């Protein structure tokens, strides 16, 4: 157990673990699960946004949305690469996604029903994602931490763009546009604060992840931080958050919020959210429809690797 002791010592000292270093199996598995889940979230997350590219209302907004989706595909790529350093291939991870064994962020199982959903996803969903991800920039596994630094920088940019898109509509738009923004916020608020996961007392994997420096801050703590920050931003926007119980708690130095409907959360995680079947179906279809392309690329590479026959 000398290896494990040395590993624990590294962790305790706040050192980073590199791919070549020894690590416990469970640490490796936990990381593969978390990183691939994060990668899958980027990939599946392209779908609800992709739904509005052809309908974006101006060319500037269309360009911003395309750039964002491109960034997300890029994040997926870094993250799959980071996970691959742990010995699992991208195809294996995708297989787990397509067969339903691997999860992705449940937030992407909600539909994008109006253009304002694009700004709202940027503001709330990316906002919550960043809150979750910034601590991972200090994650004990170095390749993951390095990927997250770059990702968080881009996500912050996306969040600001989303907020700005909403602000433009709220400050300069028509009444119909303002109502569209409020409607989007009403639909995305609760799913967004569920993104931090179940309450700490019901989060079984958290303790070990904390111990290993994979997770740094608890679900409830992150959620509180997010809510506090968002309430101030909502005031700037001029939208109402759909929770009448939000009020400042002097003692906790945080806002109190209303009861979260965890039965909805578990229903969506369990596969019965509004778009679970569509999202996974779209990914599986893209993969299956693309099989001949991947086969052809391999066949071509093999062909070109062979010595060419001489011309007659």
């Amino acid at each position, binding site marked *: 157990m000398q290896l494990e002791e040395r590993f624990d010592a590294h962790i305790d000292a706040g050192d980073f673990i590199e791919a070549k270093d020894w690590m416990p199996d469970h640490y490796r598995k936990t990381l593969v699960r978390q990183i691939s889940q994060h990668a899958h979230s980027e990939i599946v997350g392209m779908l609800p946004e992709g739904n509005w*590219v052809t309908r974006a209302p101006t060319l500037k907004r269309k360009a911003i949305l*395309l750039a964002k989706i491109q960034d997300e595909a890029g994040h997926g790529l870094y993250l799959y690469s980071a996970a691959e350093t742990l010995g699992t291939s991208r195809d294996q991870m995708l297989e787990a996604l397509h067969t339903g064994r691997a999860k992705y962020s449940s937030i992407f199982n909600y539909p994008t029903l109006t*253009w304002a959903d694009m700004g709202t996803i940027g503001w709330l969903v990316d906002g919550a994602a960043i809150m979750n991800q910034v601590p991972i920039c200090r994650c004990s596994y170095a390749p993951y931490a390095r990927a997250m630094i770059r990702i968080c920088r881009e996500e912050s940019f996306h969040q600001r763009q989303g907020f700005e898109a909403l602000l433009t509509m709220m400050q300069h738009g*028509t009444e119909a546009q303002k109502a569209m923004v409020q409607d989007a916020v009403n639909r995305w608020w609760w799913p967004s604060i569920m993104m931090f996961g179940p309450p700490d007392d019901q989060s079984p994997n958290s303790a070990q992840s904390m111990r290993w420096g994979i997770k740094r801050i608890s679900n409830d703590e992150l959620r509180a931080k997010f809510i506090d920050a968002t309430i101030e931003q909502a005031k700037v926007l001029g939208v109402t958050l759909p929770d009448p119980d939000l009020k400042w708690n002097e003692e906790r130095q945080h806002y109190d919020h209303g009861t979260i409907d965890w039965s909805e959360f578990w229903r969506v995680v369990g596969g019965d959210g509004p778009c679970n079947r569509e999202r996974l179906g779209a990914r599986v279809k893209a993969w299956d*429809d*693309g099989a001949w392309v991947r086969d*052809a690329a391999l*066949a*071509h590479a093999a062909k070109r690797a062979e010595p060419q026959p001489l011309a007659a």
Partner: protein
Amino acid sequence: MQASIAVDLQPIVQYLLRIGDTCLIHAQRISEWSGHAPILEEDIAMSNMALDLIGQSRAVLTLAGQLEGRGHDEDQLAFLRQEKDYRNLTMVELPRGDFAFTVVRNAMMATLMKLLWERLHESSNAELAAIAGKAVKEARYHQQHAADWVVRLGDSTDEARQRIEKALRELWLYVPELFESDAIDEAASAAGIGPRWTDLQAKWLEEMDAILGEATLQRPDDAAFRSTGKRGVHSEHMGYILAEMQYLQRAYPGGVW
């Protein structure tokens, strides 16, 4: 406010609309791949190409609006015209098809655009020359990327080859429109704005032949079919593209986005 705008028919404006609209509608089609590509790298490549095309379209439509002199900005031109006032090539309207169809179309279009931007870089209009200087680099990359795929798919499995041959056959029907000359081309050429597109044909065929040759593919025969999107008479696909693309601008009059 969101009723359709009327566009000036002066040749130089029309010449620019052909370029700006072709980039725009092509971007619409390519962007349908975002999230649905055969491999993640192609999700990135397709999104990126769509983004470049949107950027080119914005620049050219803005310039068209300035030359038109009626105060139309890029978004009014992009979103508030009637179908018959769009001047894109019909080829870019066709549904995205499978990946073979997409890469063959991309190779054809990027080759055309690269040759066009090269010439527009010498335009008498300094603004257009500057736009072209940036765009030609993007088009070169698009051409390379698409050509690589045409070669890869053309010279690989039977299935891929059949698909790419079918795509080539279908798309080749729309090639004559690319190089049909008319008064608009003549006017643009006379004013030193840009080339007659027919003058790009020989070089285009040469470059396409090189790509097809490396892919071990035959150039299809020419047919008597003629598409006419460049003159504003589009395929039946166009109406659906516009209904979707214009919807928000139409449904939220006076909106600020």
